[in-house]
């Protein structure tokens, strides 16, 4: 059994003291930012990237991964207790979770979310371990043409499933790809779009963009909104254990949510957010007239929470096996690997088995830590909910500044981040999403290289992308996705699905 051997290797790595500590650090940080509104995993991971220079690759990635799935747990806490989803993937949890809290059943809701997430996390870990090797083998068959087509599919997939206008999201991808063109051309050595500024010939750091748009841009947007008055259900959280009746109702939802989340997470563009939405819709449909959805149905908490955690886990698959990030957090993970001198892609599994399997095993360990962190220790996080934003945003500001400065120890990056802060605010005002831009920016250089190599190999014949079966299949899939989303019937349903979440 290769699977068991691999997992054994992984657990051997994950259970070393250092790695356990970093997994714990990641989980605590993840829960923290999940609980604190206004700070998401993208900004946090971007902020921490400079600090991983000092770490080994394995503990660094274990910690960053912990932040991502930890945020899923923390996000549900705020969704249930104060009706403010700490993370976008907890938006649907707030609908029924908050109602449960108002009826004095916050404990049961938190337990359903926590235990459901843990179950999903365990299944997700096994799925990654089982599916990563065959996918990796497939990836080795890929030539430049296939890689280019795969990236097109990945980028398109990332936006058709997201909310908001499709055309604007595609435009944001292209903008990301264009920003990535500000660099020195690898093949000819020509400096592009540098305006004779020496710093620009090395390109713009993706941390600068992520920090500007997701860190500062969001601060400005949050401060621009009127202060809200929140009702916190802190006293009602006792009696964490759900009743037998709760268990009977929630367990099938957890199973369904996990299955759905695992499947959707693997898709390009999938991940936590989409999985949660889809699971909520499914639970509501299945329950039919027996459901009390919107009025505190435990299935509306258990299903989406399991799904978002399963999705968060399996979205590591495309990143680990193909080196192609399906969402903005994975894009940062790719960046982190590059910082540590690891070229993301199918070769990671064979060249760095310790890192690969250690990371996967650490996810299970991390999920276990998170259940403990979030259920018995819930009181600590509830206290944090009462920290006013006026203490938080200066802290985020200074951490982001230090993070950008220490990236290369120069102030150029800091100034550039200020520029992107404004850009981020403009995007926010025009409802253009930042995540597709970041994905495009990360994939830009890879995409150009593969495109040019594919064209060189085919002697300039563009049809190479369509005559090679694998490549053609990927492009057709991408085109189909756009067409399906554009269909009037799906389009209206998609709008309804996202409108319900608001």
């Amino acid at each position, binding site marked *: 059994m290769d699977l068991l051997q691999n997992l054994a290797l992984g657990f051997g790595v994950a259970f070393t003291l250092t790695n356990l500590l970093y997994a714990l650090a990641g989980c605590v940080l993840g829960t923290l930012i999940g609980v604190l509104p206004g700070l998401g995993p993208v900004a946090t991971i971007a902020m921490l990237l400079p600090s991983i220079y000092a770490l080994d690759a394995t503990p660094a990635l274990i910690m960053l991964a912990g932040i991502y799935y930890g945020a899923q747990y923390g996000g549900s806490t705020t969704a249930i207790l104060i009706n403010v989803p700490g993370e976008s993937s907890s938006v649907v949890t707030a609908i029924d979770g908050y109602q449960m809290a108002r009826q004095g059943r916050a404990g049961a809701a938190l337990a359903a979310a926590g235990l459901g997430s843990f179950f999903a996390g365990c299944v997700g870990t096994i799925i990654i371990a089982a599916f990563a090797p065959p996918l990796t083998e497939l990836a080795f068959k890929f030539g430049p043409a296939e890689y280019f087509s795969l990236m097109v599919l990945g980028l398109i997939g990332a936006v058709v499933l997201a909310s908001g206008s499709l055309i604007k999201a595609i435009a944001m991808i292209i903008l990301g790809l*264009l920003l990535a063109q500000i660099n020195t051309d690898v093949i000819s050595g020509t400096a*592009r779009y540098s305006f004779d500024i020496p710093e620009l010939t090395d390109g713009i750091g993706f941390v600068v963009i992520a920090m500007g748009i997701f860190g500062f841009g969001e601060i400005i947007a949050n401060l621009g909104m009127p202060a809200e008055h929140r009702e916190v259900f802190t006293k009602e959280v006792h009696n964490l254990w759900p009743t037998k009746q709760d268990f009977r109702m929630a367990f099938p939802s957890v199973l369904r949510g996990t299955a759905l989340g695992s499947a959707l997470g693997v898709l390009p563009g999938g991940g936590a957010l989409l999985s949660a939405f889809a699971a909520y819709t499914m639970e509501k449909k299945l329950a039919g007239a027996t459901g009390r959805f919107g009025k505190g149905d435990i299935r509306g908490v258990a299903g989406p929470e399991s799904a978002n955690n399963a999705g968060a886990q399996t979205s590591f698959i495309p990143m680990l096996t193909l080196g192609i990030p399906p969402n903005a957090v994975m894009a940062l993970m790719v960046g982190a690997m590059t910082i540590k001198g690891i070229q993301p892609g199918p070769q990671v599994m064979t060249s760095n088995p310790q890192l690969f399997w250690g990371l996967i095993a650490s996810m299970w360990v991390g999920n276990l830590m998170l259940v403990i962190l979030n259920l018995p220790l819930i009181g600590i996080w509830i206290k944090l909910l009462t920290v006013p934003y006026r203490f938080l945003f200066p802290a985020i*500001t200074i951490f982001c500044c230090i993070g950008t400065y220490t990236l290369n120890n120069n102030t150029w990056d800091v100034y550039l981040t200020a520029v992107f802060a404004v850009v981020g605010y403009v995007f926010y005002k025009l409802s253009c999403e930042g995540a597709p831009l970041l994905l495009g920016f990360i994939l830009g250089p890879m995409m150009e290289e593969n495109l040019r190599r594919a064209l060189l190999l085919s002697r300039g014949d563009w049809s190479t992308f369509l005559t090679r079966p694998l490549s053609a299949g990927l492009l057709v899939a991408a085109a189909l996705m756009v067409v399906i989303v554009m269909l009037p019937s799906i389009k209206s349903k998609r709008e309804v699905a996202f409108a319900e979440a608001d």
Partner: protein
Amino acid sequence: MKIKSQRDFWSGLMFLAIGVGFAVGAGNYSLGNSARPGPGYFPLMLSVIMAILGAIVLFKSLTIETEGGDPVGHIAWKPLLIIMGAITAFAILITKLGMIITVPAVILIASFAGDEFHWKDVVVNAVVLTLGCWLIFIKGLKLTIPMWPAFMGAAG
């Protein structure tokens, strides 16, 4: 001609302008041909797509009705300018004065961006964060970032 979606109108215009800008820039670099794509090849391709998408968004914003005209809303100038100022202050001060002065200064400036401003809170926040930054970034992560002002000579 009436604008039916303010947000889409401005985004369309933005995408179109960026597309045209990058396309003009791409003209400075050798395009090559499809068999031997030059440094300008991929950027030109992208900027053309960008401009087309921008034009579509622009066109839609002028033709498709939206509820209430989808206004951009008021611009939060105060937080925008103050946060920018805080970041710029950090960049100017950090190499000369070190974290011990820069961190409290940035906290102070940034705090003005909020709705409420209490001196006591700002002082507490500045002290806690300066200490925290020293512990996390210098002691914990061992990053090279000056703690003391340059004229005091002592590093970290």
